[in-house]
């Protein structure tokens, strides 16, 4: 089990061992390139697979069979979708701002990929072990708002622009409760480093100490990834497909890739901050526990998506500013009192 637990760490160490000086510049560069390729593959495969899992889940919710003609129980459907998307025409409409039109999907995918850099998939299995990990996550993930606005503005289409503006309003509003919900955890652990936060959860996952924060994070996280019931930015009835209206073929595929990549990244941060990361009963290796927990959170998000209807845009904003934000502040206050009482008790008992 120990060997299995440290499988990837040992492989990395073996690759480093091939170099004369295992911490030279070239060894670091090699490891970084390999980590980048692996992270990219994880994102692409997870996103492609998730697009099918979502359809399967939708069909499970509405009690029918779902795609079942291609491969065993239709599990090869996503390959056909990807192949079809590769073969589609790439339309750049005449009056778009060509540079930003082509830039926006790439930027969104790049931003999503950058978030994956700080996620600790297991003990020692993190591409960049930043001391400001969670801070970096927020700084980078808020850039995706800019890409959405860029797509909406550059498309030169009224529906796209409306979608882009909705994206800005929604994602900036929900970023605040998202951030505040994680402050409670950071107050307890006194660190921004994601690996250190997971190590602090060895005895008890923070979901038991911070249940309110977990719920707020989940709701705000769904809103951040623009999924139902918060998918106003691509509401078909009002604005055709939001900022993505003018995109066809592979460029639109990149947007979908980024959306599902964002879902995985948000779930991974939820697992890191609340569900105890790689800790779990010892019959499975740590990185497998991490992946299983990510899937658990993703299923929760899908369950919510296929259960609730789309909210109205003003209800959405009210929900963020009048309910989630005060609740997040209350959570911070309660956590502060809890820490104070705990320290008093420790001083009295002499822990």
């Amino acid at each position: 089990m120990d060997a299995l637990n440290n499988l990837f760490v040992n492989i990395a160490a073996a690759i480093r061992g091939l170099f004369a000086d295992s911490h030279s510049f070239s060894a670091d560069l090699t490891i970084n390139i390999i980590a980048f390729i692996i992270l990219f593959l994880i994102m692409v495969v997870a996103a492609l697979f998730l697009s099918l899992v979502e359809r399967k889940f939708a069909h499970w919710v509405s009690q029918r069979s779902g795609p079942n003609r291609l491969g065993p129980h239709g599990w090869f459907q996503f390959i056909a979708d990807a192949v079809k998307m590769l073969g589609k025409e790439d339309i750049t409409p005449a009056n778009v701002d060509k540079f930003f039109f082509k830039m926006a999907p790439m930027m969104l995918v790049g931003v999503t990929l950058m978030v994956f850099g700080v996620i600790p998939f297991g003990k020692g299995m993190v591409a960049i072990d930043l001391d400001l990990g969670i801070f970096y996550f927020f700084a980078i993930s808020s850039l995706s708002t800019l890409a959405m606005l860029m797509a909406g503005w550059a498309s030169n289409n009224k529906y796209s622009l409306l979608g882009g503006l909705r994206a800005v309003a929604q994602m900036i509003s929900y970023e605040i409760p998202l951030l505040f919900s994680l402050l409670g955890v950071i107050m307890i652990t006194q660190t921004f480093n994601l690996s250190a936060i997971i190590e602090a959860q060895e005895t008890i996952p923070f979901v038991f100490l911070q249940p309110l924060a977990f719920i707020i994070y989940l709701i705000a996280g769904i809103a951040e990834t623009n999924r139902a019931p918060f998918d106003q930015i691509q509401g078909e009835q009002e604005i055709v497909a939001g900022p993505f209206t003018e995109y066809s073929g592979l460029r639109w595929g990149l947007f979908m890739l980024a959306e599902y990549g964002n879902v995985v990244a948000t779930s991974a941060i939820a697992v890191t901050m609340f569900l105890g990361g790689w800790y779990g009963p010892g019959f499975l290796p740590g990185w497998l526990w991490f992946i299983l927990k990510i899937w658990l959170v993703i299923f929760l998000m899908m369950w919510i998506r296929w259960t609730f209807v789309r909210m109205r845009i003003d209800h959405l904003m009210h929900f963020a500013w009048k309910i989630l934000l005060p609740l997040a502040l209350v959570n911070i206050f309660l956590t502060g009192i809890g820490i104070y009482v705990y320290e008093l008790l420790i001083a009295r008992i002499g822990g």
Partner: protein
Amino acid sequence: MDVKKEKELRDAEAMAEKNILLTGIEKFLNWGRVHSFWPASFGLACCAIEMASSGNPRYDLSRFGYEVFQASPRQADLMIVAGTLTRKMAPVARRIYDQMPEPKWAIAMGNCACSGGPFADSYAVVPGADSIIPIDVYIPGCPPRPESLIFGMLQLKQKIQNPTKARLIKYGK
């Protein structure tokens, strides 16, 4: 020129005609295309209700992977002309068809879209959608049942998978 060389040249010509180099890629792409037609959600009349119900659990178009109705024509592969095409709507329908990226297909669903149906001699109705949009598959019925629509989409799949056969049927030898 000796006979052997002439035969070789003729073979090469035949191979070039069959596009032997790209046939594998084309087959692979076609395999992907036929298994995921994403129709534009574009309904004109009562046939659109049948189109919607073919996506419901009872008929379940999604078994074939065709249930992803796209709101934007830029992301759609297939246009289902579902219902009566009036002269006023015709330019809009043509525009939506033009906005779809290649490769694209169109299905005429119902008698109105096939030939004008009961309104064939009306001054307000286009007698057959094929006068403004190149139609691949015609589905008769007023309106056709969801099973007919699914059968029509499967016929379109056959057509794309066997391009030579489709050409033979249309133009003869």
